[in-house]
């Protein structure tokens, strides 16, 4: 019963937090929705959808050959490293990725030097739409490729044997086997990427270059921070929430893409693709994908090494920002894990209840929704709402640390739940009844039964949540002041004043820490899966 009570409390807290933000947006005085439909707002909305559509198309389009090539070549030299490389953009703070892209694709970057050598006069521009698309493809093509690869690997081995005995050429294999599988995955994958691109903030802020290339998220930020025009910020925020709401509702009808390969897939030997021509095609595709993903990362490392790293590590600005970032990340991570544990627990308790009434079932459904609330109301929208709600009480910056922590913890919540839920459920099924019948509870239960088993998944979830929070710029940028400088904010402001050398050094350090945390957060899950087998 206490578990359910805790769940109800968490539900109340989360909906209260988001509800306050929403209410502040809706009730904002002088919002005057006249601003909702002016040329500027409308074209910002149009640009947001347009760039998201293009980004999704490109990411999926380039992701398909990569996934096919990887699936077809289980023996490709260094294949596991390519798959790992494709996972890196997920764990990399967006700002750091943007820096790497500027290093390669900027006007003075390696790629344009190369193009100039080849005699191209007009360099590729990283500013505006082309830059945004490039960056979105950098972050989302690997995601698309990995999700589709997992789908292809789930195809049972019999299919390949039959295809081989029928002597099907690569084209027919695609048409009859791979195609239908990919087609089934497509709505989920495309929907996810579209959602990520619609709510893109940091990339557009860094690479947008003016009002012509602005997403709603950035426009809200500018309306608050640049113009101090809360009316316009509210109008834009509501427009954004409506948009994500419609998207989420639409996505509820398509299957959710999962990353894990089915256990059966291991035996799925491939007999096709031995032709010289397909070998060349696959080799080229993988080489291109590796270069495209790897070069910006290499640029971050090289540029970072050029900076005077020891001096940066000991500079007071870095120490302060690192401490702030760590404190925020640790708090947000802990909070996220606590919320997730309570939610999972309450869900399980309600599930085991014999006669769950309407109210209980309602709480359970609410908890599932609350876990991924952040997808509907993006961090920046939550921030904007709270910003307006707290303004009457004086300096908003005072509340900034608390708000950033709560917002970051909500951001991590869907991932944390995904990591913790299976471990908790299995553990509960194994020990729940026995522990109850032995009357072990409270601290004894934690020390003897829960602690040893659950410590590992909890640490994993915590480290993943911390990685997310460490790399986040959005919430901090909105409230950022000189009292609250996190590492990404420090990098962003160094970048702003074109002290790029320092920014590069900080970027390398932060990128390294975040990747390390992500590896800790995800490597474990692979181990656990193999353990269970």
């Amino acid at each position, binding site marked *: 019963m206490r578990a359910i009570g805790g769940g109800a409390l968490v539900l109340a807290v989360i909906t209260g937090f988001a509800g306050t933000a929403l209410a502040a947006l809706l009730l904002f005085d002088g919002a005057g929705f006249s601003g909702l439909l002016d040329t500027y707002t409308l074209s910002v909305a149009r640009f947001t959808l347009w760039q998201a559509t293009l980004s999704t198309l490109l990411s999926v389009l380039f992701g398909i050959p990569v996934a096919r090539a990887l699936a077809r070549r289980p023996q490709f030299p260094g294949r596991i490293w390519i798959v790992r490389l494709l996972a890196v953009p997920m764990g990399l703070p967006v700002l750091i990725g943007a820096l790497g892209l500027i290093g390669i694709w900027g006007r003075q970057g390696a790629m344009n030097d190369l193009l100039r050598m080849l005699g191209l006069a007009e360099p590729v521009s990283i500013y505006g739409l082309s830059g945004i698309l490039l960056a979105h493809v950098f972050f989302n093509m690997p995601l698309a490729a990995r999700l589709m690869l997992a789908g292809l690997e789930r195809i049972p081995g019999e299919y390949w044997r039959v295809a081989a005995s029928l002597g099907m050429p690569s084209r027919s294999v695609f048409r009859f086997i791979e195609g239908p599988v990919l087609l089934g995955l497509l709505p989920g994958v495309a929907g996810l990427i579209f959602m990520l691109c619609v709510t893109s903030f940091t990339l557009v802020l860094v690479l947008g*270059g003016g009002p012509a290339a602005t997403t709603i998220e950035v426009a809200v930020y500018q309306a608050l921070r640049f113009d101090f025009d809360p009316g316009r910020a509210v109008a834009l925020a509501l427009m954004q929430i409506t948009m994500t709401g419609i998207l989420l509702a639409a996505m509820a009808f398509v299957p959710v893409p999962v990353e894990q390969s089915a256990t059966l897939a291991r035996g799925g030997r491939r007999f096709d693709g031995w032709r010289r021509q397909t070998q060349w095609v696959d080799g080229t595709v993988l080489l291109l994908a590796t270069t495209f993903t790897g070069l910006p990362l290499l640029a971050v490392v090289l540029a970072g090494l050029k900076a005077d790293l020891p001096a940066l590590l000991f500079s007071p600005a870095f120490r302060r920002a690192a401490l702030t970032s760590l404190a925020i990340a640790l708090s947000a991570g802990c909070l996220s894990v*606590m919320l997730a544990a309570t939610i999972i627990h309450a869900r399980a308790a309600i599930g085991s209840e014999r006669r769950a009434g309407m109210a209980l079932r309602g709480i359970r459904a609410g908890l599932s929704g609350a876990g991924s609330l952040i997808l509907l109301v993006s961090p920046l929208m939550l921030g904007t709402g709270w910003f307006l709600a707290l303004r009457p009480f004086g300096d908003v910056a005072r509340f900034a640390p608390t708000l950033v922590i709560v917002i970051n913890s909500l951001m991590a919540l869907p991932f944390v739940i995904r990591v913790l839920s299976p471990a908790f459920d299995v553990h509960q099924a194994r020990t729940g009844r026995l522990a109850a019948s032995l009357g072990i509870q409270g601290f004894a239960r934690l020390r003897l039964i829960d602690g040893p088993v659950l410590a590992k998944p909890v640490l994993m979830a915590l480290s993943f949540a911390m990685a997310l929070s460490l790399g986040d710029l959005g919430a901090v940028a909105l409230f950022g002041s000189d009292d609250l400088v996190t590492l990404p904010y420090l990098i962003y402001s160094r970048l702003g004043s074109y002290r790029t050398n320092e920014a590069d050094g900080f970027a390398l350090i932060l990128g390294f820490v975040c990747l390390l945390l992500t590896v800790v957060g995800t490597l474990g899950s692979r181990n656990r899966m193999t353990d269970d087998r």
Partner: protein
Amino acid sequence: MRTKFLSLLAACAVFSLSSVAADAAGKTLTVYTYESFVSEWGPGPKVKEAFEKTCDCTVNFVGITDGVALLSRLKLEGASAKADVVLGLDTSLTAEARDTGLFEASGVDTSATTVPGGFKDEVFVPYDYGHFAVIYDSKVVTSPPKSLKELVEGDPSQKIAIQDPRTSTPGLGLLLWVKSVYGDKAGEAWRALNKRVLTVTPGWSEAYGLFTKGEVPMVLSYTTSPAYHIIADKETRYQAAAFSEGHYVQIEVAGLLKNAPEKELGRDFLRFMLTPGFQDAIPENNWMWPAAATSAPLPEAFNTLVKPEKTLLIPSEEVAKNRKAWIDEWLAASVK
């Protein structure tokens, strides 16, 4: 059940939360200003050193992107702003800044100042001025525009970096410059000019950084900018384009906040601003014309600069009344 476990986690969250807050004590003068003022090469460090010699205090500069962002920040923080002095607003913003009711009369005698148009104000004290100008790289741009019209209608493949008028005073300056030359046709002019704009940066520093890195051959800055390159790097390739319609002027001012924690110290600072101790740091660090006497004549390079034949300036009250509408006009013209 698992409450102990959770409270452990809670304790760890609270502990890390409490370490976020950090503060310092002592008598400190806090000055909000724009970023380039406080950079290592800006006047900030010199001014800080000079003023700290005259007072028993520490000067704490807080750098905020650019001048217009300063005003937004003030409106945002309202009466809870923790600053004593705000330095770096300009004449386009003074009326709007005064209307916030956050400033109080400076009580500083400004009769010795020499600024174009003889700026006089109860609240704001001018400390330097300069004319906006398009700076070009003469190695890339062989026939620079001779008028704003030529800039607007010129070759779209030759790019310029400008600043966002919502955050930066040069950006706002260009907006007003276009307005005072084109009037009701400003929207069309912007639509044409935007074809030449590589990017719109939030502050002057970013745009000028792009320019000196060679990413863009033209940038919106000041007639005084070439003096920097002549004196600091003995480089004459960066030139200001003289425009036949005249140049928009910027007079930079500072003001004292009503809720200043160290009000007397703030007043002393405003007085100090018009003495050589402050003014000497202006020409060769802020690269603007000083508003009051310096201890020595200006370097020779300042005599080689473009001297605008005509100075343009829209009264502050009119700017305050129309700023939002004009910015919306620019926004509408800037989106596709």
